[in-house]
Every structure is written in structure tokens, then in C-alpha cells.
């Protein structure tokens, strides 16, 4: 076998003085890094730096270091670029990777700061005063028609008021991640946590497993181009239906689920042969123009009894115009996925170079819809690397109704962002279908961790709102006046509608 030119990225270092020789590391690693002969012997080239062994070693004697080889300085050819060429020369293949874009593009959230009230306008104490985060997701009418109720009061006119909006206790929902790309334990954790937190989870494009049926009121079902698992029953079990047009990590191309991850159960849910690759086509083959999208939206409404139908798109150059078309096509919400969004598997070249930042997408979509006078007709869900409640608050200030978190939820379940989901061997049991690994996610435990995360962020949002002097999130929503930029270039500032600090 020909020698690979690519050196191991990491070095596994074991302090053998402390090692108990218990063999735990051998058993915990999903990539067979360890052999055992009297003591664990690591194969560095297989290590993905997922830290499962580090975490579970009872002696805490394992550490993972970067294997830094000295190269002659070259600002143009990074080591990543070198490795990519070597790997492609070896295999002739499209390089597949996972999770979100790690490249050093500008992180706009980190250049935005929030306001706080002082002296002239008081802040509000979030611990003792009411601080409302409740949000309704869906299409809202332009105005409310009332009629007299005959008793000197008023009531809603027939057919007026809100239809089919979904109440969220906090403006955070879980992003779509398909069953197949993540394990059933993850889906069950998300569903249980969504019910407990009064929010929604999303099945992603892999169908709805029957274990999730008890939680169907907190589930958004997705209709993607592969139409996996899409049946009448699927639609009728959902709280809302989402048409997946694109995804921030891979705008313009379809889903990839490598055959390694199509086991018997996944095969049954998706109705494709076991072991075959589930490569969803990029376009829905019945959507080649905006009026076709409208046709599908109304088909889903007719088939589901007029439940809310949303559309998920990736943030690309003309996202504002696309969003406007989608709203006019009848969508009840738009899900915007920025270019930092995660994925279970995507070609690296698309993940790293295609798409635009979420911050800009939210700003231009919100602005365009307001200019056209249709902002109330659809809610905006923003996703794509929301890393903290601060990012969530800034996203809401830019114009989003709700934020969706994906990577953050997997981190809550143990993920260490080793970007190896596409191999299907996740040691944490998250992005794999191997039974010996998936059993590591106990849904009760997972639900508790996710609930903790959502609660923590909700409380932090309340602190932020209190500091801003508002006691309801709708007063922050779209209020760019509460943001300032530091070190952001002028044109981006104008596009975001955010003034530089000082003004």
C-alpha cells in the first residue's frame, strides 16, 4: 500500500506512570485509535481529537496535542491547502467534511455590542420583574378586526385574529438535524427537551421516527428534495411543516448521508436501500421557479389542513429578494441559515466558500420585507452558528423573530467539534448509527442537558433585556438602534443598519 503523504494531525500522549491500564480508552474510542498490549498504544493518525478518551480516562492521564511539523513559512499555502491537494491526489474524490465553516472570515456578531440603560432611562431588574420572552411563530394579519359583542364590549370579528401561530416560551428553537445524520438518542433528547421548554425541534430531512410521536406537538417536520419519510401521516403529526430549499453549510447543493450511516432503521424511515448513499438532489424536482414553491406550499397546506408551512433557505447573495418571493408565495415563516451553519456531511469546498454571513442575511431580509410592507406575513428564524445568548440577542435586534441552534445542542450532548460526523463513527454517539456508540446517548440525560442549555440562555436573555430597559422581547426585535459596531467597516455597518459606537 502506498504511503500517504499526510502526517497525523494530532499526537496522543499518555502518562503511563498514571495509567491504570484499564482499557477504558480502547473501548471508548470510535475510531479504533488504541491497540492494547499490556498498555494502550495509540495510532496517532486515526485520532480525531474528539476527547472522549480524555474525558473518560479514570486516571486523567491522556492528552491530545497538535502534531506541529515545521514547514517553510508560506502565507499563501496553508497546511490545510497542502493537505487537501495531497488527499485529492490520493483519492480523486470530492473532500467531505462536517460541522460549520471554520475559516477565519469576519465574525460580525463579535463586532456588535448591545446597549444598556442608565440614568435617563432605567434598566429593569430581571430577577424580580416580569421579563417576557414568549414569541409566536407564524403569519400575522395586517390588523385586527373587531366587532361589538352586544354587551358594550368587543370581540374578534369572524375569521379575524391569528391563525395557526405556534407559541414558543422562549425565542429559541432547535435546528433541523436529520435522523440518519444524528442518532435516534439525539432526536429523542431534542424532542423531550422541546416539550419541556415549550419550544420546537425539527426532524430534518430524515423522516419522523415513531419514538417521537408522543412529542408531535413540539415537532416541525421537514420536506426536503429527497422527500424522505414524507407521507400524509407525517404531515398530520406535525406542529408545522418546513420545506427545505437549502442549508447554510452547503448552499445550492443537496444533502449527503454516506451509506455507512444508513442502517436498517434509517433505511425503513427513509425508504431507501440499506447502505446506499442518501444524496438528496439539490433542487426539489418540482420547484424550479418561485411559483412552483407556491404550488408546493399550498399542496402541503391542503394535505395537512392548513398548518403553518415555513421555508428554509441558505443565506446567499440575493437572499433578500428570495425571501420576499417566499413570503409572497405563502410561507408562514422563513428559516435563514448563515454560512457558518453546521452539517453532518458536506463537500469542504462548498462549506468553506459558499454563502454569506447570517448577520447580513437577517438585516437585509428584515429590511426588504419591511420596505415591501409584508414583514408581518412571515416570521424570521435565524440560524448558523448562534453560539451564545449574546448572539441570540444580537440576531433578534437585527430583525429575527426566533433563533435556531444546532451545533450548540450537539455540544450540549458531548460534541467536541472534531468535524468527523461524516465518518459515522462519532465516539460520543451523536452522529453515528452504530449501536455500541449510539447507546451512549441516554435520552433522559440528553433532554436534561438540553433543557439546562435553553433555560440558561433564556435567563441570560432576560438579563440582557433588563439591561436594555425592556421587559418584552418584541421591543428588542428589529431594534437596531440598540446595537453599535466596533471595528466594523462602514459598508457592512450601513447594510446592517447599525451605527458605529460613539454615534
Amino acid at each position, binding site marked *: 500500500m502506498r504511503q500517504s503523504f499526510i502526517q497525523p494531525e494530532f499526537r496522543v500522549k499518555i502518562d503511563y506512570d498514571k495509567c491504570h491500564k484499564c482499557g477504558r480508552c480502547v473501548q471508548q474510542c470510535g475510531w479504533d485509535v488504541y491497540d492494547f498490549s499490556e498498555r494502550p498504544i495509540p495510532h496517532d493518525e486515526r485520532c480525531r481529537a474528539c476527547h472522549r478518551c480524555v474525558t473518560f480516562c479514570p486516571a486523567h492521564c491522556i492528552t491530545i496535542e497538535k502534531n506541529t511539523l515545521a514547514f517553510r513559512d508560506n502565507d499563501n499555502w496553508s497546511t490545510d491547502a497542502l493537505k*487537501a491537494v495531497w*488527499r*485529492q491526489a*490520493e*483519492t*480523486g*474524490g*470530492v*473532500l*467531505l*467534511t462536517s460541522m460549520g465553516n471554520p475559516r477565519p472570515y469576519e465574525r460580525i456578531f463579535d463586532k456588535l455590542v448591545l446597549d444598556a440603560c442608565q440614568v435617563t432611562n432605567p434598566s429593569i431588574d430581571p430577577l424580580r420583574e416580569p421579563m417576557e420572552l414568549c414569541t409566536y411563530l407564524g403569519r400575522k394579519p395586517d390588523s385586527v378586526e373587531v366587532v361589538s359583542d352586544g354587551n358594550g364590549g368587543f370581540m374578534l370579528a369572524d*375569521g379575524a385574529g391569528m*391563525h*395557526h401561530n405556534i407559541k414558543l416560551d422562549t425565542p429559541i428553537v432547535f435546528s433541523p438535524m436529520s435522523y440518519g445524520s444524528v442518532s435516534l438518542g439525539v432526536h429523542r433528547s431534542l424532542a423531550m427537551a422541546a416539550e419541556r421548554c415549550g419550544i420546537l425541534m425539527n426532524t430534518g430531512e430524515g423522516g419522523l421516527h415513531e419514538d417521537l410521536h408522543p412529542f408531535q406537538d413540539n415537532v416541525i417536520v421537514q420536506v426536503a428534495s*429527497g*422527500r*424522505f419519510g*414524507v*407521507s*400524509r*401521516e407525517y*404531515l398530520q403529526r406535525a406542529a408545522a411543516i418546513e420545506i427545505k430549499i437549502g442549508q447554510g453549510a452547503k448552499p445550492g447543493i443537496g444533502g*449527503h448521508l*454516506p*451509506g455507512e450511516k444508513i442502517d436498517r432503521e434509517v*433505511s*425503513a424511515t*427513509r*425508504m*431507501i*436501500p440499506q*447502505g*446506499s*448513499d442518501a*444524496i438528496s*438532489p439539490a433542487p426539489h*424536482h*418540482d420547484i424550479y421557479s418561485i411559483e412552483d414553491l407556491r*404550488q*408546493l406550499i*399550498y*399542496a*402541503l*397546506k*391542503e*394535505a*395537512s*389542513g*392548513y398548518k403553518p408551512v415555513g421555508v428554509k433557505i441558505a443565506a446567499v447573495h440575493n437572499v433578500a429578494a428570495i425571501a420576499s418571493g417566499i413570503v409572497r408565495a405563502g410561507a408562514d415563516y422563513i428559516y435563514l441559515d448563515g454560512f457558518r451553519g453546521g452539517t453532518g456531511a458536506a*463537500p*469542504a469546498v462548498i462549506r468553506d466558500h459558499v454563502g454569506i454571513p447570517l448577520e447580513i442575511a437577517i438585516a437585509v431580509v428584515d429590511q426588504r420585507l419591511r420596505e415591501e410592507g409584508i414583514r408581518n406575513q412571515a416570521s424570521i428564524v435565524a440560524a448558523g452558528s448562534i453560539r451564545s445568548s449574546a448572539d441570540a440577542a444580537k440576531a433578534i435586534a437585527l430583525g429575527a423573530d426566533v433563533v435556531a441552534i444546532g451545533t450548540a445542542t450537539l455540544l450540549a450532548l458531548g460534541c467536541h467539534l472534531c*468535524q468527523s460526523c*461524516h*465518518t459515522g463513527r462519532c465516539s460520543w454517539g451523536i452522529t453515528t448509527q452504530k449501536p455500541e456508540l449510539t447507546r451512549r446517548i441516554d435520552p433522559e440525560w440528553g433532554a436534561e442537558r438540553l433543557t439546562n442549555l435553553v433555560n440558561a440562555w433564556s435567563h441570560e436573555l432576560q438579563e440582557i433585556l433588563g439591561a436594555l430597559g425592556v421587559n418584552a422581547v418584541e421591543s428588542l426585535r428589529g431594534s437596531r438602534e440598540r446595537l453599535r459596531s466596533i471595528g466594523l467597516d462602514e459598508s457592512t455597518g450601513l447594510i446592517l443598519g447599525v451605527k458605529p459606537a460613539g454615534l
Partner: protein
Amino acid sequence: MIKPASIAPPAGVIEGYRYMAPVVERDGEIVRIDAQGVYFQQLNGAVRDEIAAGAKLIKIANVNGQRYIGTGLGVSGVKIEIEGTAGNDLAMLTDGIEIEVFGNAQDGAGNTMSNGRIVVRGDAGDVLGYGMRGGCVYVKGDVGYRVGIHMKAYEKLVPVLVCGGKALDFFGEYMAGGMLVLLGMNTRDERQPIAGGFLGAGMHGGVIYVRGTVEPWQCGAEVGITTASEKHMTELRPVIEDYAAAMGMDAEHILSQPFKRIAPISHRPYAKLYALM
């Protein structure tokens, strides 16, 4: 149910469809609906109401382009007869209904259908049977582009789509399961080849039977063409007999010509395309 928000045109302007309930005549379990100029929301609402009230045969006359007829229904023992041109997305997402169209079907018939029996006594347009997961669709005449894309099957749920005429490009693209049959018999254009290009492109499951010749250049790289053997013909025969009975054709005559069988060479046609980083 959300009311259609002021979409009716102002007075004096020509209306394509009226936003009012259709005229319905009931005769025991048989119901007649006049769809002349009725908008799809009101027409389909009336159909659903009649089924809920116990109708077993619904005859809809003067259909011209109304969409989503039969969409989302999941009943057995009920038949809908459509006279006229069925509009887009006929029988989409259905889980059980029998529909017979005395006329043509437009685009998207049988889209993401799980169960049901659709018989079209005319031609059908593009994107027929997209993502079909069960049930059967029989078309008498020609069909358009992108027919039978990503059909899927699992154990007993096997979709079947039979076209009596010819098809254009992308027939059976990305097929994952089920059976597609192309007869090339009831066609308006004798000179056209029976199928276009990109037949079965990306196919990784299921089977396509073609009555006649198919050239290798017409097919995607993922499939192999063989002549259907006797064993294959035993699989095909009941389907052809059912189709012939529905269309009033002679099954033996259909089966008298040899069939080509197109099936995937591998269930993982893209295995070598990707490399893991």
C-alpha cells in the same frame, strides 16, 4: 381553515375561477360536482366534505386545471372520476384514493404519493410521480420530463408507474425503489425514441421496464440494460395485466414484444466520488 385573503378579482374583470362552492348533486352514495370555473380550495373542500358525509363515488365534471384534487386524502373504497384536464399536483401526498381522469393530467400527478390508484386516460405532464412511495399510477399516453424521480420502496410498499406512451428526458432519475414501466404504444409521435436522455441517472434501487429498444448512451452510468428474462417477466406480467384491464388494452399484445430491463449496477453509485477529510 384560513380563508383565501381577498384574491378574487374586482367586478367586471374576467375571472379564471370563482371563489364559491360548487354545485353538488347527491344520489345516495354517488355525488356529482360541477367544477366549471370553481377555485381549487372550494372544489377540494367540497370533495372532502362529501367523502366525510359518506360518498363512495364522486364524479367531477368540467374540470379545467384545478390543482391538488385528491391531495392529502387517505380513504379506501372511494373513487373520484374527473372529466376534463386535472390541474397540477393531482393526488399529491395521498394515502389511499382511487382516481380516474377522463382527459389529461397536468404536471406533478402522484407527487409524493404513499398509496392510491390513479388512472389517466390521456397524457400526463412533467414531474409525474416524484418521490412516490406506494400505490400505482397508470397513464394511457405520453408523459413529459422528469417522470418517476426518486421513487422509493420499503418491503410491501412498492410504487408502480406505467406509461402507455413515450417519455422525455430524466425518466426514473435517482430511483431508489419501485417499478417504472414504459410501453411506447399509445403515442402521438412515432418518430420519437421511446425515452429521452438521462434515463435512470443516479438510479440506486428499483427497476425500469421498457417495451422496445433503449440505447446505452440514453442511460446514466449507474445502470445496466438487459433483456428481461422469464423470471423478470413473471414479475412484470401482473402489472401489465392490471394496466391492460384498466385501459381496455390487450395484455397479451403488450407482452408479445420483448422488454428491456434497466436496473442499477450498484446500490452505492457515488461511493468513489467522495473522500473523507
